[in-house]
């Protein structure tokens, strides 16, 4: 029983790491603030969630698992809120989304 739980948890940890890596690459490569935030939010949600679930499987049924679940819930609530506040502040201070492709679109 322990071996397949271990395998699953490693799979989740690797998946979480991959999402964090993709988020980091996106943060560097994306063209403007809003798309960069979109990439960074991947780290916040999928990345941390998968990593936390992986660690929870390692910890088994214990107090640590409950604490990790509480951290996960907290992050699920706060990360999107922080992203919202950041994007709203950026829009208010005049950072326009880079949407040139909208203008270059052929007329329907």
């Amino acid at each position, binding site marked *: 029983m322990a071996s397949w739980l271990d395998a699953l948890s490693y799979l989740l940890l690797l998946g979480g790491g991959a999402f964090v890596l993709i988020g980091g690459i996106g943060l560097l490569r994306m063209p403007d603030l809003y798309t960069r935030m979109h990439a960074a939010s991947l780290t916040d949600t999928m990345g941390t969630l998968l990593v936390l679930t992986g660690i929870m499987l390692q910890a088994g049924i214990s107090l640590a698992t409950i604490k990790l679940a509480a951290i996960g819930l*907290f992050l699920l*609530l*706060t990360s*999107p*809120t922080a992203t*919202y*506040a950041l994007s*709203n502040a950026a829009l208010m201070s005049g950072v326009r989304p880079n949407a040139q492709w909208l203008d270059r679109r052929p007329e329907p």
Partner: protein
Amino acid sequence: MTVLFGIFLLTLLVITAIGIVRSENLFAAVMLSGIFSLLMAANFFILDAADVALTEAAVGAGISTVLLLGALALTPMQERRNRAGRWVALGVVTLTALMVVYATFEQPRLGDPEAPVHQHVAPWYLEQTPALVGIPNVVTAVLGTFRGYDTLGEVIVVLTAGTGVLFLLGLPGAIGKRQREDLASGRSYLGHHLIPQVVGQLLIPFILLFALYVQFHGEYGPGGGFQAGAIFAAGFILYSLIAGEREALSIISPRALMALMAGGALLYGGVGVVCLLLGGSFLDYSVLASDPRTGQQWGILAIELGVGISVAGVLLAIYHAFAARGR
């Protein structure tokens, strides 16, 4: 593994520090200093100093970033270029760095049991804490009873810092006779944003509950008055961000804030005086109960509460003093 993580974190720390120095945008510098504190907290945690890590995360990464942002609202965003005296500064920094590097040659290896720091008083604390105080967290025992004078001094320093800021900036409503209605008129806050408001209202009770847990669980796990006070203040700062200054100040009025600031320190000193009156020496809690160990535990609970109240009051008062100046 610890060494690997430590090197990784310390490298990031150096990069962040260079970023802080190089950045001319003060906003970016404040954000980087928050990251610096968080990295430092992770470092402390790797070295098994959970209490210090919690303090660094709550105060360094949390509250002081908010306070620096509050100060930034009063100043220009860009650093003013100053080319005079750069060579002197470079010389001083180089000399200090060389001295620090030279000092590391004499430093014992990381975790060396023969290091002087592990030979001096630490073994005595570890040995005597179960017998004299009877609580699992030795850090709290050292901070609260063995080194109670030092901690009292720290609380007085915090109180002095808070009083100094209030003298310079003034607390809204505490100085002068302004109406409560125009305390925060014209201030912008997140009241008209639905998402932060809903999430904030959902989270604030739990943040305050966590602060109480950190406060009263300090004898058994990492935590204590300093961390709890910072977390409590963070919860209330969040409230005044989403509901506005006026609402926050009507819950804890400026007068009450000043009472909290002074009351916490007074509670700490009062415990010492009670010890004196019961026939012990100053801050020797053994006389507080018939069993000396129970007395020690009661004393630590009381002084930690005083620390928490004082720290929360000072941090909230400084925040309100900055926020009330506005733009």
